[in-house]
């Protein structure tokens, strides 16, 4: 039994088929790369797993149980946390408060003081402890992405969904991020689903890569195999993949 699976998942928006009979399985403790050109359905897959979108057909199974009847606000409680491609923070709150909201499901019986300490520790862990008291609005994009990451981590997830975490980062920072994602996985015993356009990053950190194009699976396998797959190369018109190898 796999940790997380999509089983024949299909979802359309009017005439657009965002997911077309997609099946995938992520092993516990793995870093699972989900790639594909723009509009391939990657974010849609995240939204389906977190119950923001409802599947037309198929199933999402997490630790042996279907998620399809869980309300979206229960997903975090079940152990799945995410970040957003375009950053969804609480703009009127401070960075620390943003993270405190992330601790909502794990702080019911905890004192305010110890939750705050925990949130601060999480911010330190992702390397932005010094901006804890700043308002979230107005910080650089790369910092906001880390606030989101801290907000997700503080809920103690077992499955972490990262939607383009390298957005807004320069080359050096992308390298750091690659190491950091692996450290995260090892430190916190996480399973990571990673959506990213930075091929270099995906191929370096992923144990398994799944490729979507126009909502369909076109390849799935270890990174080395995916990089050589003619269908994948065709979908990307060669460019990005060659750079990565």
């Amino acid at each position, binding site marked *: 039994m796999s940790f997380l699976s999509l089983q024949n998942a299909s979802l359309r928006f009017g005439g657009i088929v965002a997911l077309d009979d997609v099946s995938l399985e992520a092993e516990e403790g793995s870093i699972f790369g989900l790639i594909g050109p723009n509009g391939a359905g990657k974010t849609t897959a995240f939204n389906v797993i*977190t119950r*923001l979108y409802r599947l037309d057909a198929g199933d999402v199974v997490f630790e042996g149980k279907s998620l399809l009847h869980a*309300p*979206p*606000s*229960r*997903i*975090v*409680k079940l152990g799945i*946390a*995410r970040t*957003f491609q375009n950053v*969804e*923070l*609480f*703009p*009127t*709150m401070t960075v620390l*408060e943003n993270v*405190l*909201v*992330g601790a*909502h*499901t794990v*702080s*019911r019986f905890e004192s*305010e003081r110890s*939750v705050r300490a925990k949130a601060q520790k999480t911010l330190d862990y992702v390397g932005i402890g010094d901006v804890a*008291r*700043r*308002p979230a609005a107005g910080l650089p994009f790369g910092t906001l992405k880390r606030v989101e990451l801290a*907000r997700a981590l503080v*809920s103690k997830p077992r499955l972490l969904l990262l939607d383009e975490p390298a957005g807004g980062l320069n080359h050096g920072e992308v390298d750091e991020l690659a190491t950091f994602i692996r450290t995260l996985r090892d430190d916190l015993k996480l399973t990571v689903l990673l959506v990213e356009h930075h091929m270099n990053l995906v191929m370096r950190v992923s144990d398994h890569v799944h490729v979507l194009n126009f909502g369909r699976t076109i390849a799935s396998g270890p990174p080395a195999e995916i990089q050589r797959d003619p269908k994948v190369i065709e979908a990307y018109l060669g460019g990005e993949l060659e750079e990565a190898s």
Partner: protein
Amino acid sequence: MKLVPIGVVVAVLVALPFLISGYHQGLATYVAIYFIAILGLNILTGYTGQISIGHGAFMAIGGYTTVLLSADQHWNLLATLPASLGISFVCGLIVGVPALRLSGVYLALATFALAVSVPQFPLKFSKFLGGSNGIHAAQTKSHLWLYVVGWSCSALAFAAAWLLLRGRIGRAFRAVRDSELAAVSSGVSLPIYKTLAFGVSAAFAGVAGSLLVLVTNGYAQPGEFGVLLSLEILIGAAVAGLGSLWGVIVGAVFIGLLPSVAPDVPLIGSAHGQDVVFGLIVVLIMLLLPNGFAGFLRRFEPRVKTTIKSDPKTS
């Protein structure tokens, strides 16, 4: 929490009744009533971002609860207050459920409908609710009693709001207002927190309604709880500034005292001019303080230092 401003406010409120006439004690009680109602609306609109133009309806429910329990069941007036709180809370929850499907202007209109329709109930069921003449509580109370009870309730309401909003629940409310998407993804249930806010907010309004009835010689009448009352509470909340507990007292003083000060304004204020004055001042405040008094206070808060890197070429 700043202890000094709280101490100052409490000291003033304790000293005040010894310094002013019974009439002015009555006015000060009105301020307390508006304070509770605005505080309640602030929890709903300021914290969770759900607008209500219908809080007069919840005040009516609270007011009639108190009078009915006093007149028919001979309850002690103080004992009616928790009952009024509970009933209004439940009514708030009931309204909050359909409100989940509405937002913005649509929610405003739906709650406005509530403000219009609830005061019609006493006319429809005049046998129980006294029709347009209203019903009368079994007792009336002195100005001083009303002042003490009104401001004690305000203090309790303030403490309750502070306890509720300072931690996990208050953050969940604000999360809902800031981004429903992020709130849900952080495990905050929108239906639960949105209806909870409606319930709490209505409970505050209900108690304010009970006190309003007591301060008007124990009479509950439909006219008391008209649309205008709902609008006053909303204006008070706007003057207070949304999402801050401190602005509320200014909003309450504004709504509570302006109508009695307005007629004294020379030229336009006299003879039916007080509403004009009121309107003008509201417009002026909205122009000058778009974020209410709370926003005004925030301007004086120490800013977080932002280090601006000086560019050697330009400096």
